[in-house]
């Protein structure tokens, strides 16, 4: 059974791109969210195996969403999607419980490696 993924990013472009990379590799994208609040709600509802999380999103940011999701499920596997220069934020996300991160612009191979590490 393929792993079920929830994609959280406020940009449709990024969501589509991540979805394409993951779908082509055989993962099942079960949902998308465009804000932190939505991400938490969809996580509760879908209980995915993996969440990809943008850091900067309207309404509730990615780091707070990581905290909220980990409060729902301490074993949640969350992969941060960051831009260059966001090192401090990524470190904070890791302290909040994110399992790994990838840096935009995405290289499909790096994204898949990170996904495999998080799901390992």
């Amino acid at each position, binding site marked *: 059974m393929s792993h079920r993924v929830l994609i959280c990013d406020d940009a449709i472009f990024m969501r589509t791109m991540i979805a394409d990379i993951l779908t082509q590799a055989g993962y099942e994208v079960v949902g998308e969210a465009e804000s932190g609040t939505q991400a938490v709600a969809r996580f509760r509802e879908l209980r995915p195996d993996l969440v990809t999380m943008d850091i900067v999103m309207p309404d509730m940011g990615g780091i707070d969403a990581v905290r909220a999701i980990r409060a729902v499920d301490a074993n949640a596997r969350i992969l941060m999607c960051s831009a*260059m220069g966001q*090192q401090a934020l990524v470190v904070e996300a890791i302290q909040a419980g994110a399992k*790994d991160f990838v840096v935009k612009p995405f290289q499909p191979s790096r994204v898949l490696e990170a996904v495999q590490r998080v799901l390992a």
Partner: protein
Amino acid sequence: MDATRYAALFLAEGREQLAECERLLLALEGAGDRAEALAGLFRAMHTLKGMAATLGHGVIAETAHRTEDLLDGLRAGRLAWTPALPELLLRATDALRAGVEAVAEGGEPPLDEALCRALAAVAAAPEPTGTFAVPVLPGAEPVPLHTTFELRAVGARRVEVTVAPEAPLPGARAMLALARLEALGQVLDLAPPAAAFPRDDFGGTFRCRLVSPAGDDEVAEAVRGVGEIARVAVRVAEAEPAAAPERTARVTLRRLDRLMHASGELVVARNRLLAQVAAAPRDPALAAAADRLAALVGAVQDEVLAMRLVPVAEAFAPFPRVVRELGRTLGRPVRLETDDGGIELDRALLDELADPLLHLVRNAVDHGLEAPAERVAAGKPATGTVTLAARRERDTVSLLVRDDGRGIDRDRVRARAVADGLVDAHAPLDDDALLRVLARPGFSTASRVSGVSGRGVGVDVVFTRLRRLGGSVAVASVPGEGTTFTLRVPRTLALVRALLVDVGAERYAVPLAFVEGVARLRDAGARPVLALGALLGTPEAAAPSGAGPAVLLHVGQRRVALAVDRLVGQQEVMLEAFDPPAALPPWFGGVTILAEGAPALVLDAAALAAEVPAWTA
């Protein structure tokens, strides 16, 4: 097993854990992150209990257990937080420290049953039964009972991790590796500290000790599992040298104060004796005995002062949290850099400096730093930097609070100050003048109300406190580059080295902390000249002449030549606080009894700088 070795480890780690508890409790009373502090306290109590139980220190284990129960309830949200809790938890920490210190002396105090009952009452746990059983822990905790302690005793591993050079965000990658290590056991002696990881200049390599039941290969495998790791080295740490346990005695601070005072008087008496012996050199044996006595008094003095010295790092310790919380509250990313320079300072002084430092750091984050967007627009990194540093100069220690913000807006400060009649509209507002304006009590209140985008808030408080300590404040502010406040204090309280000068028939003491040197007045360079006699209105004082002596003072950025009638020499003087008569100028900091038995007023050079208008010329 080597019992002595375990005991030494217990003491060292027990003290460490209790110091951490205290730090966290103080953070709890402040604006700290409560959940994080509670989790830290819980871990510390847990470790302490495990160690104490292993070594059979039942009272400590029981007390730690009760405290841990309470903390667990708070941490898990079963118990509600109340403002009275820090007090109770501090009491528990004190009791535990007393227990640990008693173990250091080979005993153990009786169980503080009142404390245990109070803890149990809050935790709603059953009354203590009086016997200690190793408890079953509620909830899973990453550090299994005793493990830390035992493995540390048999030697932990040293781990060195290097992130692949091409990896993006190497600090974040390193953080992932660190998280893996923390999942395996206890990480100690992390270098660089975790605060360095988020920085852009993080090099990608970190080292630590790891206490974990996992095998070497397992550790290396776990780290490699985070990906983009160039190198992992895991080796057994060399056993720590079995340091002979340093025996300690508990002495109240009050006793220490009295001892310091007495030893200060002793120094003054020694100086008086030496002066007498030098004045009448008749008896070589007496002179030799006096010399010997003088050396011994000096040694006593050094020891007493050393006892009171604590690392400045202790005063800096709460600030990473303070700054982090402030940054979070204000919604601006801030980084704190500290550089304590390994400097030590009298504990009493350091305690007094805690509030001024807090004031200045708050001001730096709140008013000094710009909003991230404004910083980026000005070509600066979005994250502001606040620096806390300590420096030693002559007999003084300077504590610096620096921000890389917008700098103080002099035009606005000047407008306010001119409106309040504090400065002349055309006078240049240099750093010293700026400080004098900011330090006016009325000014700070007014500036806060009117929202002047500079400082002002609390600077008067800082200024007053420093003057009371015989220190000084300086400010340096560059538009667009930031502001530095420098708090300068004598290294030790009470006993100061001073230059004695005569004006008319009176003798005065000038603390050497502010003295750059002495010279003939005509050789004093471009400094403004102040005649002490004229300032004091001493009729018989000599008129300053080029050939007359001058004391070269240096306060803040201001240098001045203080003309006096005669230079007498240096002496250590015991500074006594006094109620100054109303007629006395406000720039005397105290009074002292000189070696020859006569009293002398001690000049407060910093106050002189603040009060005497001639200095602004």
